[in-house]
């Protein structure tokens, strides 16, 4: 039930914080961490943009397939001609598409899992991303991430000498983070 490490990526995709919480973890070079942050940022943006959008169905067509997560397949061949025409027009007008769950905002990649670890990504509404590497069996990761966000708001954002979007070098943040994570274990 361990938290392995934490990475914080600013809204521009830059690495601002990286720390391990277990001894004996394999480390990357500083440059590789920067590349990892930038790459993840890009992949995250792509996963957002490939979120499936459903064509908003004209009222005359039944809405039987609207709950499917993939775009509506074309109906029978007799209708396909007119369908194709309407479809070629729709991409230009935004409201012609709806997201599968309109009530829930589009997020990007949230969890990436291997046999050996789980990467949980929490993006705040301001665009900052917290990447938490944990044991795949760990429970209540959301609680851990929220607590880390609170500590970040307190000891990083409220430090008047911390420059926004710049690498985090706040000793108090390190200390409180380590203490809290140790207290959990």
């Amino acid at each position, binding site marked *: 039930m361990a938290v392995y490490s934490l990475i914080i990526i600013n809204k521009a995709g830059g690495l601002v914080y990286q720390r391990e919480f277990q001894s004996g973890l394999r480390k990357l070079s500083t440059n590789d961490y920067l590349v990892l942050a930038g790459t993840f940022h890009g992949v995250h943006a792509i996963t957002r943009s490939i979120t499936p959008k459903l064509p908003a169905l004209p009222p005359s067509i039944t809405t039987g397939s609207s709950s499917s997560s993939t775009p509506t397949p074309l109906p029978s061949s007799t209708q396909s001609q007119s369908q194709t025409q309407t479809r070629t027009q729709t991409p230009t007008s935004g409201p012609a598409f709806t997201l599968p769950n309109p009530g829930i905002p589009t997020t990007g990649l949230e969890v990436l899992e291997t046999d050996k670890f789980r990467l949980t990504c929490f993006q*705040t*509404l301001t665009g900052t991303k917290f990447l938490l590497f944990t044991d795949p069996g760990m429970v209540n990761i959301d609680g851990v991430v*929220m607590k880390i966000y609170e500590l*970040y*708001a307190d000891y990083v*954002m409220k430090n008047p000498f911390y420059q926004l979007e710049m690498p985090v070098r706040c000793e108090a943040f390190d200390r409180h983070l380590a203490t809290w994570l140790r207290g959990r274990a």
Partner: protein
Amino acid sequence: MSATKTARLGEESRVDKVNAELVTLTYGTIVAQLCQDYDEDYMEVNKQLDKMGYNIGMRLIEDFLAKSTVGRCANFRETADMISKVGFKMFLNITPTVTNWTSDNNQFSLIFEENPLADFVELPDDGRAQDELWFSNILCGVLRGALEMVQMQIEAHFVSDVLRGDDTTEMRVSLVRYIEDEMPPDEE
């Protein structure tokens, strides 16, 4: 989100408390010092206060989001409610009234029935402060900075202040635009 639920969020969001008078005195000292430093150029003092607030807002928004755990607002009306009932409640323990909406739902007023920043304050009697100084102007900057961080460009200014002898203290907030969080095309 329903209005009562929003109000409850403001009540429940746990924040450490400090003595309100310490805040009032600290803020009052800052404004008085600014007036001195800028030779009673109140326009400049307003500007500086707004700038200071902007820098506070950009940091405070993370605290607001982390402690209130609210999600994104669906529209500007919801945002206004959130500002009044959660934001102001959490940080100043007041709930300004949201009112005077324009028909396009892009502008509203916050009416402050009480204002902890302005307790004990009397504006200087030099014939200009009453017309030029917006004592609590830092709040405009805070809103501007905080909302910019959550992709809303707004404009905020005071239109009346009981310190100036007006009947109410009113801040006007206008949504300029939603900032697209997509990357600029040249970066992709």
